[in-house]
C-alpha cells in the first residue's frame, strides 16, 4: 500500500515536471491562431529552420482572442485577428509596430492587400488569408442563375435560404441590398436593414453557423450566404454548387498576422511572420486551409483549378464594389440591439 502511494506521488511529480515543459532554456514563441487554420507541418518546418519552439494555441472568434489579450495573464507573440479587430486593437494600443525591414518577404504580398483601412500605413499587420462573402446555390434546385443579394428576398425560394448566424455579415447583406455602406454609422439605415431582414424571415430556412456546410452539401436547402473559403470546400464535395459574388458588392475580409504589444519575443515573432509569408509556406497553408492567399507567387504553386477559380481568386472587376469591415466603435451597442431585434422577431 505504502509503495503504491509512493509510486503514485512520484508519477504526479514527474507528470507535472514534464508537463510544465522543463525542456531547458530553448527559445520559444507563443502563437495564437484560429482553429484548424494552418498546415501543422509548417510549425515543424519553422522549428527545424530557426531552432525556436512554437507554442501553439487556437481560438474560435475574434472576440475570444480580444478577451484573452485584454485579460492579460498570458502573452502571445503572434496572433491572427480579422480586419475590424486589428483596427480596434491598434486603437487600444494592444499591438506593436512591426519593423517591415525584417520581413524580407513583405514585398511578395499583392499591393491590393496592403494599406487597407484597418491599418492605413500597414505598420502593424501582414495579411495571412483573405476572402469574400457571397451566395452559394445548388444549380439542380434553383432554376435560374442568382446574381444579387436581392435574390435572397425572392419568395420563389421559400424555405430554401440559409442566412449566416453572424451579426456583421448578415446586416451587411441587407445594407448592401439597400445600397448602403456595410460600415454605415447611420442608425436609420441600420434599422431599415433590420426591417428588411425581418421581412425576409418567413422564407428563410434558418440562421446557421458552421452547420450550413453540411446542410448545403447534403442538399437539404438550396441557397446560403457563405464565406468564399467554405464555398471552395463545399463545391469540391458537391459539383452542383455554384458561388457568386453579388452585384451590389460584398464584404472583403482579411485575417492578418500581428504582434501584441506585450509580446515576449518580438524578434522571433517577426521571423515567424516572415516565414509564413514565404511563397512555398504560404502555398502549403493555402492548400491546407482552402482560403485565399495574398501572396501571388504562392497562388502560382497551387493547382491550376484553384488558381483559375473565380471563387478563391476573383478578378479585379468582381471585387470592385467590395468593402472591408470597420470597427463600429461607439455604436457597437446599437448593432447588438438591432441584431437582437432581428433574431427574436417571429
Amino acid at each position: 500500500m505504502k509503495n503504491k502511494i509512493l509510486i503514485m506521488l512520484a508519477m504526479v511529480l514527474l507528470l507535472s515536471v514534464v508537463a510544465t515543459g522543463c525542456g531547458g532554456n530553448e527559445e520559444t514563441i507563443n502563437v495564437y491562431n484560429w482553429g484548424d487554420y494552418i498546415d501543422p507541418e509548417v510549425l515543424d518546418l519553422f522549428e527545424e529552420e530557426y531552432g525556436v519552439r512554437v507554442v501553439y494555441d487556437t481560438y474560435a472568434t475574434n472576440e475570444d482572442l480580444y478577451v484573452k489579450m485584454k485579460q492579460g495573464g498570458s502573452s502571445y507573440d503572434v496572433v491572427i485577428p480579422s480586419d475590424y479587430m486589428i483596427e480596434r486593437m491598434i486603437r487600444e494600443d494592444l499591438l506593436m509596430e512591426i519593423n517591415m525591414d525584417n520581413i524580407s518577404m513583405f514585398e511578395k504580398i499583392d499591393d491590393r492587400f496592403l494599406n487597407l483601412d484597418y491599418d492605413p500605413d500597414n505598420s502593424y499587420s501582414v495579411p495571412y488569408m483573405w476572402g469574400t462573402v457571397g451566395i452559394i446555390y445548388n444549380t439542380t434546385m434553383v432554376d435560374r442563375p442568382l446574381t444579387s443579394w436581392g435574390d435572397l428576398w425572392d419568395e420563389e425560394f421559400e424555405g430554401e435560404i440559409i442566412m449566416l448566424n453572424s451579426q456583421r455579415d448578415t446586416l451587411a447583406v441587407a445594407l448592401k441590398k439597400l445600397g448602403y455602406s456595410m460600415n454605415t454609422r447611420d442608425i436609420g439605415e441600420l434599422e431599415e436593414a433590420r426591417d428588411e431582414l425581418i421581412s425576409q424571415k418567413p422564407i428563410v430556412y434558418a440562421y446557421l453557423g458552421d452547420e450550413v456546410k453540411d446542410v448545403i452539401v447534403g442538399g437539404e436547402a438550396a441557397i446560403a450566404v457563405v464565406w468564399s473559403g467554405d464555398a471552395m470546400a463545399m463545391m469540391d464535395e458537391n459539383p452542383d454548387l455554384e458561388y457568386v459574388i453579388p452585384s451590389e458588392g460584398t464584404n472583403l475580409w482579411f485575417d492578418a498576422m500581428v504582434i501584441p504589444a506585450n509580446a515576449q519575443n518580438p524578434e522571433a515573432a517577426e521571423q515567424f511572420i516572415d516565414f509564413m509569408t514565404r511563397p512555398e509556406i504560404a502555398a502549403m497553408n493555402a492548400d491546407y486551409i482552402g482560403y485565399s492567399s495574398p501572396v501571388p507567387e504562392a497562388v502560382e504553386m497551387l493547382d491550376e483549378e484553384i488558381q483559375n477559380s473565380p471563387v478563391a481568386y476573383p478578378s479585379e472587376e468582381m471585387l470592385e464594389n467590395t468593402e472591408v469591415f470597420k470597427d463600429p466603435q461607439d455604436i457597437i451597442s446599437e448593432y447588438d440591439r438591432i441584431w437582437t431585434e432581428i433574431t427574436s422577431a417571429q
Partner: protein
Amino acid sequence: MVNRNLKRLYTFLIFAFLYAPIIILIIYSFNDSKFRGDWSGFTLRWYAELFRDREVIRVLYYTFAIAITSSIISTVLGTVAAIGIHGMRGITKKSVLNLNYLPVLNPDIVTAVALMALFRMARLQFGFITLLLAHITFSVPYVVLSILPKLKQMNVHLAEAAMDLGATPMYALRKVVIPEIMPGIITGGLLAFTLSIDDFVISFFTTGHGISNLSIYIYSMARKGINPTINALSTLMFISLVALLLIINNRSEKSKKIIQERR
C-alpha cells in the same frame, strides 16, 4: 406478453437514444468527406492524419496529464476531507457539508470567473499550474460526496476494534478504514477524471498560452468546422473506455469468485 414487448421496446429506445450519436460519430470517422450527412466512401485517412497532427497529440497529452494529476490529487484531498467530515458532529458537520455542496451547485461559469480573478490577483502565470489547480478545485467536492456514503455504511466500531487489538490510529486507517471505503474512493477518482476531461468552461478561463485541453481545441474549430480527425479521436477514446470498463468488470468478477471459493 404485450407488456413484456413494450418493456423491451422502451429499453431499446432508451439505449438507442443514448448511443445513436456515438454510433453516428464512429461511422463518420470513416467517411471520406469532410462534411457530415454526406457519405462518399470508406477511408482511414482521418486516423492517419490524427497521428501526424502534432497539435492534436499535444492537446491530448495535456488533457490526460491534467485529468490524471488532478484526479489523483483531488482523490487524496477528498478522501482525507471525507474522513474528517465524517468524524464531525452537529452544526459543524452540517455547515461543512453545505460548504462542500455549494461548489457542486454553483454554475461553472461563476467558478471559472472567480478562479480567474483569484489567479490574477495572486499574479500566477496562466498555464498548466492554474489549469491543474482549477481542476482540483472543482473535483474535490465530488470526491467527498462519493466517499461519504461509504463511510456511513461502515461499522462505526471497526476502527475502534482494530485499535483495541493494538493497531496505531494510522495503521487502523490504512488497513481498516481505507479498504472499507475503497469502492467510494475509486468512484470518486473516476468521477474526477471524467469531470476533468469533460470540462470546457472553467478550463477556458483558467488556461494560458500553450496549454489547451481537448474541449478548448475542438471549440476553437467552430469557424472552419470540426475536422473529422476529431471524430477519429473520439472514436478511439470511446473504444479505449469500453475496453477499460470490460477489463475492470472482468477483474471484479474474478475477485468475487475467489472470495466465494475461499468461503
